[in-house]
Every structure is written in structure tokens, then in C-alpha cells.
């Protein structure tokens, strides 16, 4: 059996080559390609924010709280995931939310959206639909008029990832 398997592998390889030569469209996968594409254990959820958050806040300290991220726990399709961010704030001229930032640590571009509000916004709330490149923890940051930063997060399991599929 052990002596047999390399032969088999070569035969399959030759067969694939023959098919590819015949039709011109069948991709030729070298032996072992399937193993090479096996996913390795993903890093823990939200592990990328240690670097991303200081960049977004320009080093300002961030406290957890006051920000709620509403997202589905399970998204069938990463191409369009509804998200709602709500920040607790009086939204008065002397006490309001200056900006809301939504970050992803698994997307190729970490800043999904940044919105600037003001006292005229009336309510610190933002809803949109986002793309997610796989299961991850999304994090929202809110900058208050007093300069403090607050954060909230949500975990989303994504069955079919958006982007990077090369299609």
C-alpha cells in the first residue's frame, strides 16, 4: 500500500494535466494543495484590536461601555450584515457624541465606517449594512465631546465570508 500511493498520486496528477490540456479550463492542483488550504486555528476573537484601537483613537484611552452594537449573532452571508450602533448620550451642545467608528479586525480594511455627529444629530445612533470577512468580533468606538472614548462590541458568526474569494 505504501509503495502504491505515490503512483496513484502521479496518475491523478497526469489525469488532471490531460484534462486541463483537453479543455483548457480545468485548474491543475498540485498534489498536497488540499492540505495546504486546510485552515489553521483562527486567532481568538477580537485579538486584532490591541493594535487597531490605539490607531483609531490616536492613543487616547478607551473605556468599555456606553456603546451598544446590535448585530445578528449568526450571519449567513458576510456580504451584507445589518448593524446598529447606539451610544448613550444626552446629545446636548455641552455633552454629545463627536464621532462613531466601526472597526473590524478580520477585514482587509479595518475601518468600516466613521461618522461625525454633533449636537444637531439629536440622537447618537447609526444603522448600516456591512461586509464581514469571516466570523469575528466587531468593535465600535465613540468619541465624546469631553474627549473621552468608549467602546462596545458584538460577535458575529459568518457562514459565508465576503471578499477575498477572488470570484
Amino acid at each position, binding site marked *: 500500500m505504501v509503495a502504491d500511493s505515490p503512483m496513484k498520486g502521479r496518475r491523478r496528477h497526469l489525469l488532471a494535466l490531460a484534462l486541463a490540456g483537453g479543455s483548457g479550463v480545468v485548474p491543475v492542483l498540485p498534489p498536497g494543495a488540499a492540505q495546504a488550504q486546510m485552515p489553521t486555528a483562527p486567532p481568538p476573537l477580537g485579538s486584532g484590536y490591541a493594535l487597531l484601537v490605539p490607531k483609531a483613537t490616536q492613543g487616547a484611552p478607551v473605556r468599555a461601555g456606553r456603546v451598544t452594537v446590535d448585530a445578528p449573532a449568526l450571519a449567513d452571508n458576510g456580504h451584507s*450584515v445589518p448593524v446598529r450602533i447606539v451610544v448613550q448620550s444626552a446629545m446636548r451642545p455641552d455633552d454629545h457624541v463627536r464621532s462613531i467608528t466601526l472597526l473590524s479586525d478580520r477585514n482587509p480594511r479595518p*475601518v*468600516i465606517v466613521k461618522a461625525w455627529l*454633533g449636537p*444637531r444629530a439629536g440622537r447618537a445612533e447609526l444603522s448600516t*449594512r*456591512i461586509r464581514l470577512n469571516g466570523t469575528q468580533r466587531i468593535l465600535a468606538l465613540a468619541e465624546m465631546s469631553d474627549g473621552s472614548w468608549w467602546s462596545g462590541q458584538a460577535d458575529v458568526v459568518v457562514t459565508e465570508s465576503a471578499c477575498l474569494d477572488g470570484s
Partner: protein
Amino acid sequence: MVVRVRIPDIVRRGQPFDVRIAIQHVMETGYRLDHSGRTIARNVIHTLVARYDGVEVYRAELGSGIAANPYLQFWITAPASGVLELSWVDDAGVAGSERVPVTVRD
């Protein structure tokens, strides 16, 4: 470019009301390939600005993480009747705008 903007039928003076906007746009990420394997250039609506009677009340910077045909809902207040103007621009330099008259009731 098809655009839909919705505001409530009744807007009260000084009370927050929601603005919902959906713009037909591919929001091309710049990571996809065409049939010959070349990268399709990134083209997303990167800025959306809301002005009320000329005063900027809301601004959003969008990225490729926003789904195609971007939809946004946000809140503003109106001190008096006026015109809400929404304008946006994409990476190809194509700009769009929409004007919505707002009638304030007490």
C-alpha cells in the same frame, strides 16, 4: 444612480428624526478579479455629507467594509423648516446629491 431617501412624515421642531438613505452603487472593494485575472479597481462611496440649510449636520466616511448599495440611517434635528441636502462622492469622482424639503411642525 438610483437613490432613495426617507424621512418621517411628521418632523417636530427640535426633535430628532431619522434619515434613511440607500444609494445604488457597487461599492467595489478593489480585492476582486475580473475574468482575465486583473484586479477590479476599488470604487466605493467614500464620503457622505448631510447639510441642513447649508449647515453640515452629519458626515460619514465609508470604506469597502460597507455592503454594496450602501444604506445608512442616522438622526438629525431641525430647528425650523428647511432643506436637507445629502451629497456623496465615490473613488471614481462621481458625485451625487439629493435635496429633501423638511416641513417642521410644532
